[in-house]
């Protein structure tokens, strides 16, 4: 098994497994920085995975499908924001509702579009292509490591930098962080915390939609029922463990990506499939343990003041 691990293929497998989690982690980070735990990432990703298939098929272009999916992801973020910020629904309850609607709704929509309840195999979708970088691909070792990945993987890595710059170098990013940390302080200088949180949730929706798009147009090339498979929740853990910073979240997302890639490789071994399937979730469980612990400490800190 070791021989399969230290290869360019396994490196690619890690990146592939990391990509959707990474998008979702960035989405979680932006929302968290604005003071909202976006637990609806799971449902949003699932919706986006289906939208990706449908709209890349309708436009017959992966880019067209991606743009529409991102727009719809933003819309989902807007809906969550409306429930949480306008109707004052508990943010966790609103998220659970979206996730449940996604579980049933995606199957219903798929049935309507493809006549199938399990997969979207009959829809002629256009997956995102793999990207070869000229010149770099000719470099030995480095070329085979860095080239030939899905274009969404590159976008995810770029997104880490973009989100970092956005949060820490732009006025809007500063406002998001201020609102998340001390809403009253932000409002006292004339920042509308509601507006800022709306923006943060819409951006969160757009980012996670990119992850969802990759699930059905890259990771796999079709939509299958419940294909987000907990990645939205894993991302929440990853973001939190990374202190809700893009760079920190990226590192943890890679860790989870490795766990996922391991699980994929180990399926070829004699260890029972069901056990192996547990690996990414077990990693998350441990991660969430740390997450909860840190939250508890934070609450104690807040309570102690």
């Amino acid at each position: 098994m070791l021989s399969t691990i230290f290869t360019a293929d396994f490196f690619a497998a890690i990146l592939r497994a990391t990509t959707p989690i990474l998008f979702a982690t960035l989405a979680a980070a932006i929302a968290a920085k604005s003071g909202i735990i976006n637990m609806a990432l799971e449902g949003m990703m699932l919706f986006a995975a289906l939208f990706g298939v449908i709209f890349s098929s309708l436009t017959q272009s992966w880019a067209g499908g991606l743009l529409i999916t991102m727009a719809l992801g933003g819309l989902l973020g807007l809906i969550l924001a409306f429930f949480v910020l306008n109707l004052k629904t508990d943010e966790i309850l609103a998220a659970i509702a979206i996730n449940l609607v996604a579980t049933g709704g995606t199957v219903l929509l798929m049935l309507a579009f493809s006549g199938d309840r399990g997969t979207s195999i009959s829809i002629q979708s256009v997956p995102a292509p793999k990207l070869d970088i000229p010149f770099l691909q000719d470099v030995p070792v480095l070329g085979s490591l860095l080239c030939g990945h899905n274009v969404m993987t590159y976008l995810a890595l770029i997104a880490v930098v973009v989100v970092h710059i956005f949060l820490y170098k732009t006025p809007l990013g500063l406002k998001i962080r201020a609102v998340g940390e001390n809403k009253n302080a932000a409002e006292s200088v004339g920042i509308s915390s509601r507006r800022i949180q709306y923006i943060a949730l819409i951006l969160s929706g757009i980012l996670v939609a990119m992850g969802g798009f990759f699930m059905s147009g890259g990771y796999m090339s079709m939509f299958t029922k419940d294909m987000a498979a907990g990645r939205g929740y894993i991302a929440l853990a990853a973001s939190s463990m990374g202190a809700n910073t893009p760079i920190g979240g990226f590192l943890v997302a890679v860790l989870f990506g490795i766990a996922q890639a391991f699980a994929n490789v180990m399926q070829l071994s004699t260890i029972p499939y069901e056990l192996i399937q547990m690996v990414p979730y077990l990693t998350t469980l441990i991660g969430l343990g740390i997450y909860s612990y840190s939250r508890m400490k934070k609450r104690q800190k807040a309570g102690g003041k």
Partner: protein
Amino acid sequence: MEKQIVLQMLNIMKIYSNGVVANEDVTLELEKGEIHALLGENGAGKSTLMKVLFGIETPDQGKILLNGQEVHIKSPQEAISKGIGMVHQHFMLVPSLTVAENIILGVEPRKGKVFIDFNKAVDEAKKIAETYNFDIDVTAKVEDIPVGIKQKVEILKALYRGADILILDEPTAVLTPQETAELFVQLKKLRGNGHTIIFISHKLDEIKEICDRATIMRNGRSMGTYRVSEISTDDMSRLMVGREVAHSFEKEAAKCGDVVMRVRDLTVYNSQGVLKVDGLSFDLRGGEILGIAGVEGNGQSELIDTLNGINKKYKGTIRIKDADIQRMSIKDVRNLKVAHIPEDRMVSGCAGTLSILENLFSNQYDRPEYSGKMLLKRKAIEKRSNELIEEYKVKCRSNKQAVGMLSGGNIQKVIVAREFSSAPDIIIANQPTRGIDVGATEFIRQRLLEFRNAGCAVILVSADLNEIFALSDRLAVMYKGKFSGVFTDVSAVTEEELGRYMLGLEHAEKLEGAIYE
């Protein structure tokens, strides 16, 4: 020379939707370049009036004239844009951001169209700090700077936004005497620069020291505006409270009894692992009030929570009436006749949504007088609760009213009634009169003295130095988890001296004998 009037609030009326008349026909006039005190008890309507001015509340009647022009201020943004700035009592700062970032938040200088120009932000923050002679490191994170500096940042924030009129809501409540003195110097400079300052307070001596004029409020009405130099503190307090308040207590000499609490080498770390109480030892005797002064955050809260049996993680020993409380539950500790007035009345003092009656009995509902085998004895509880409400003068409609609906002073009276009615031998009072009106304060202090005279031991933690001076028989100052000073003759201590110990500029060499045997 006639002074120029910059702001007039004329006949302001504000009735809240729950029917509370917060402001009734209140008129406030500000002269340019004055420090104007807004004086009144809690609930007198000061905050509401300022909320109206700052655009947080809209008045039901009356008008506001700014430089002679009528204005309608609908939001804090509008107030800010019209040159009105407010420094809130609870700081409106983002802890993880730097001083400069906090100052420019919302009006960030930009590099190109997209990015914040952080260098310019630092430069501008420095410039504004220098203009007003504020000595601040603008690149420090707000979470790392002391309270006094945070307040300066708040003031700078308002000035940076072009505030001509500054509202300061009880600015000295969180400051040490030295920090207060420094603040006053700054405020005088601002006044010299032509800024107008509204200084909300109920500390008469501070108003005497720094304010030019004072508008006194009581029960939502203005009791008039006076030149501070022409009115005595007694008159001010009479107008504020409506009756003469005794400022110093007639205190009998303490009749110290036996040691009821013996603390040795007490060490407490908080949940973040920070050392908060550092090897404290002291004895507490029946019939004395041990005052504990100190800047907030020097371990007072942790000390009190440990003495009460709430925090179990400590090293050292606490013996109450010769019983080691390490393994006792909070209830066991209370059964040793220990009463506790907690620091934060809304968080740990009461259950806000429950009724006065339910709150009054939350520490003694299971006593045989009030509880049968299965059900509570309603009649007995009703009767006793009405007695307590009367005895402690809790202003309420009935004992069924939710405690959270009462004013701060009345909530505190409910808590005090509950704690004192358990017939304690030891009272641990943490900020018992913080943020409540003069009447309730007086009442609670008087009660504490009565208990002390009857042989009860009292530990009093307070940020109010007047309270500490007035009540304490012995006085200890906490600094970084230790007693930096202990005074057995409280009358010989000056505020300045106390301040030096509070800031850790001086340390007592030898505590043995003064604070324990």
